[in-house]
């Protein structure tokens, strides 16, 4: 059975939450390469953004991607505030950072479940998604929404972290901490998982640099870059962040990096909750933004998000360019596909942590 076959992982496939069209050419069980077709989720967000005012854009930008919605609105709001030349109150900065970290935990736990499901461990998928409900409960308590929170506005945030939220959050995060240690033990000791992830689809550090990747996939290959530390938005310059890297860049190190990043985010949440200053949570912002251009970078759960925004004095943005982290990650995927078995495709796809809604915009 050695003749070449093309395996269509088409718009609909149990492997994909979102539609892409991946044509894998394989001979027998060996994968030779793959061609990728995006554009199934292209809704022209940048075009739509030009026909909406800045405040109307926040619900739109929140719906670019359901998993990292808060990071998008945070970056957009910081960009508009930079153009307006206003500084949001420190309490609002800390609340924004708190939700960014909660969203990172939520995204990494979601990814952990999806990887376990693709490797054949339904049980770990169920348990990790059950524990993810803890994070969703916290976000629902804070902002009322499980997936799209609507907590950001230009000039600050709309909901405050009240006194009785603190014990609830502390207790839930403590429970989460124990659960993550259990998952880490499972992933480190279980021989069948190790057999499926060790040495699968390694990525070298200079390949990562050539493709301009900056995120968990890059950190898993030893490239020490994290936008929260290297190009920090306001609250992160006052918080010390330890960046987790792993030298050998295969599927296992991508797992290792993401799980330990959940620990790191839990620690960050505790630091934020202790260091959160008192004060009001938003500042009045004018509707018309003076002419100017700005570029803002921030760290989404999957890597570096770049926002370029230009205003022309009206209340409509003149140009909004969004570059999401999944685009370079998708560009590098065919390189990974050239050295694996057919059975490893799910592990590679889970390792890239696809977010097609981000990539296609």
């Amino acid at each position: 059975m050695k003749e070449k076959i093309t395996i269509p992982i088409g718009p609909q496939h149990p492997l994909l939450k979102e539609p892409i069209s991946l044509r894998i050419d394989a001979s027998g069980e060996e994968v030779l390469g793959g061609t990728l077709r995006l554009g199934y989720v292209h809704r022209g967000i940048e075009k739509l953004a030009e026909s909406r005012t800045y405040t109307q854009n926040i619900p739109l930008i929140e719906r670019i991607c359901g998993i990292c919605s808060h990071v998008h609105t945070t970056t957009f709001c910081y960009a508009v505030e930079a153009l307006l030349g206003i500084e949001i109150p420190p309490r609002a900065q800390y609340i924004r950072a708190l939700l960014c970290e909660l969203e990172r935990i939520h995204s990494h736990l979601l990814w952990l479940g999806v990887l376990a499901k693709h490797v054949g461990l339904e049980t770990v998928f169920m348990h990790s998604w059950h524990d993810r409900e803890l994070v969703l409960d916290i976000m629902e308590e804070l902002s009322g929404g499980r997936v799209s929170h609507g907590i950001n506005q230009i000039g600050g945030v709309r909901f405050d972290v009240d006194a009785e939220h603190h014990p609830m959050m502390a207790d839930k995060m403590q429970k989460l901490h124990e659960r993550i240690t259990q998952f880490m033990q499972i992933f480190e000791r279980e021989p069948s998982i190790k057999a499926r992830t060790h040495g699968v689809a390694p990525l070298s550090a200079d390949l990562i640099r050539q493709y301009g990747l900056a995120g968990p996939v890059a950190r898993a290959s030893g490239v020490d870059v994290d936008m929260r530390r290297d190009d920090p938005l306001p609250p992160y310059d006052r918080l010390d962040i330890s960046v987790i890297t792993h030298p050998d860049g295969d599927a296992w190190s991508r797992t290792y990096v993401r799980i330990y990043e959940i620990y790191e985010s839990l620690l960050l949440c505790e630091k934020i909750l202790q260091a959160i200053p008192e004060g009001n949570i938003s500042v009045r912002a004018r509707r018309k933004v003076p002419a100017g251009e700005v570029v803002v970078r921030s760290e989404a759960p999957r890597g570096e998000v770049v926002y370029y925004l230009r205003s022309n004095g009206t209340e409509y943005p003149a140009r909004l360019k969004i570059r999401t982290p999944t685009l370079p990650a998708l560009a590098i995927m065919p390189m990974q596909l050239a050295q694996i078995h057919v059975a490893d495709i799910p592990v590679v796809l889970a390792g890239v942590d696809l977010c097609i809604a981000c990539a296609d915009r």
Partner: protein
Amino acid sequence: MKGRTRLRQTINSIYRWAQKNSLWVIHYNSGGCNGCDIEILDLLTPRYDVERLGILAEGSPRHADVLLCTGPVTRQSKEGLLQIYSQMPSPKWVVAVGSCSITGGVFQGSPTVLGGIDKVVPVDLYVPGCATRPEAIIAAFVQLQERIAHGK
């Protein structure tokens, strides 16, 4: 003749009972923001657990009875949606989950978006909400089951 029709009725009611209690679901995202998709995947997890209602997530359209689709059908994913709908054996139902699968939602007016699942395939049930809550999707399933029990 009377006996035959009563026999046909009992068989039909048994079929309806079986179809009501064993809904196999296939999920297709036609270009949405994957907020509703992670809530649909949440249905399988311990807190919501739709297997109690006999609902299973299936991989192949041939095995599925209900097509759960999200997203405001983008032009590129329209053909995939039609293909899946045609591959599913009847009796089949379509449930549109999320505001953008009903009317295009927040992405209305974009040139690459058709705006709504019912512009491509006939829809049986609409579940509103932007990032629909899992409870709302379960309520939709229960309503679908009652509708099947009463013969569509």
